[in-house]
């Protein structure tokens, strides 16, 4: 009886801050988004980065840059909030709420890394944790709906691939010295295959995630367009005219939400997990 009464009292006390945090986070993201979007629009119209006389895509500003900046600033704010929370909390008291979440995350990431690669790559745990946080947030970024998720750009995923590639080299040389390089020539006839395998790693890693997330975004775009057309047909059948309301009605249907759960949440989680698993496995195999 007593426990039930306490729980009943506690639930509203938990729900309200949680709602505030979510609303605050979304508001923050939207605010940053609007500011960055205006800036971006200005830069794009002024063609600051466009090389003179060329129409090269290499230097064009893409919407992914906006996503990256929004996500970075939002995550920085979250990190600072966590930092303040940790500093204020007493380690001797029972952890709860945000601090419990962070504690579980940090210990899980450390355990994950050390289980895979041993004590040698314990330093790598914050990088793996960073990858997990950033990639998951980036993969589910499409849910917010203003710009495409950062990971649907090959340049973004390739930058992670190249970072992991250099980390593999760094840990290999740090722990195996010259043996890391001579290992490439171990079965001498297979040298070209070894070298190609090593170089291909960042590409496979980045293309896998890019392809998955981009295909998810493409399918969602097709589904939205198709459903909007369908709603338009129904509305014109009933009222005899087309109306702009159809675009607002589409997201209320059930099909997009199920597909969002699959393509954004599930696929995003799986891709993040595969990415950090492969990264830590390759780094630990080069370190040991």
């Amino acid at each position, binding site marked *: 009886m007593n426990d039930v009464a306490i729980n009943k009292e506690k639930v509203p006390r938990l729900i309200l801050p949680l709602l505030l945090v979510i609303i605050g986070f979304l508001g923050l993201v939207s605010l940053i988004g609007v500011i960055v979007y205006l800036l971006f629009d200005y830069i794009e119209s002024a063609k600051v980065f466009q090389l003179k006389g060329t129409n090269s895509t290499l230097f064009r500003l893409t919407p*992914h840059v906006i996503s990256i900046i929004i996500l970075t600033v939002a995550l920085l704010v979250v990190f600072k909030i966590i930092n303040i929370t940790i500093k204020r909390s007493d380690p001797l008291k029972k952890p709860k709420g945000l601090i419990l979440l962070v504690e579980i995350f940090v210990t899980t990431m450390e355990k994950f890394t050390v289980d895979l690669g041993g004590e040698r790559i314990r330093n790598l745990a914050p990088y793996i944790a960073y990858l997990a946080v950033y990639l998951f947030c980036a993969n589910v970024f499409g849910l917010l709906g203003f710009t495409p998720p950062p990971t649907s750009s090959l340049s973004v995923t390739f930058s992670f691939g190249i970072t992991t590639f250099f980390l593999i080299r760094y840990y290999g040389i740090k722990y195996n010295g010259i043996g890391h390089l001579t290992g490439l020539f171990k079965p001498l006839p297979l040298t070209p295959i070894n070298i190609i395998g090593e170089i291909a790693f960042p590409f496979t890693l980045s293309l896998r995630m890019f392809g998955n997330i981009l295909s998810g975004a493409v399918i969602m775009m097709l589904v939205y367009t198709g459903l909007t057309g369908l709603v338009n047909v129904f509305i014109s059948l009933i009222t005899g005219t087309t109306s702009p309301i159809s675009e607002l009605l589409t997201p209320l249907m059930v099909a997009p939400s199920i597909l969002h759960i699959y393509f954004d949440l599930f696929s995003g989680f799986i891709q993040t997990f595969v990415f950090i698993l492969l990264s830590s496995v390759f780094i630990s195999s080069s370190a040991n």
Partner: protein
Amino acid sequence: MNELSNKLSQLIESGLYPNIITFLTQLLATLILFYFLKKWVWKPMQEYLAKRSNVIIDELESARLVKEEAFRMKEEYELELKQAKDEAKAIIMNAQEQAKLRREEIIAQAEKEAAYIIEMANKQIEQEKANVEKELKSQVVDLAFLAAEKILTENLDQDKNRHLIDKFLNEVGK
């Protein structure tokens, strides 16, 4: 339909074609976020956990020390208790032995005294007997003298003597 294909091609184009600006922005974002994740979240959390584990380790250590102390004291007390029991036993044994000795001593003394008293009584009886005999003898002698005197003073005939002796015996018998 044309609009859709435009949107799609824009999405895929912007994602697929290599783009230096996106690449560098992401690298910069990675550097910044990694640095601040490590500085603001990772290290404080590690310190937080370390503080807690240190406190727990300290508590466990002190609990272990207290337990050891308790065990030590228990052993000490058990030893003391055993010693006290042994001592008590020894005291009781000693007392019993002494009591036995004392009893024997008392009995021996009593026997000695009894023997002495009996001996004294026997001696006294003997002496009394001797005294009585002595007195009897002297009285018999006195009696003989008295009888002889009477016979000598009244020198009579045999009948008269007989009569006198009877008379004397009667006198003596009185």
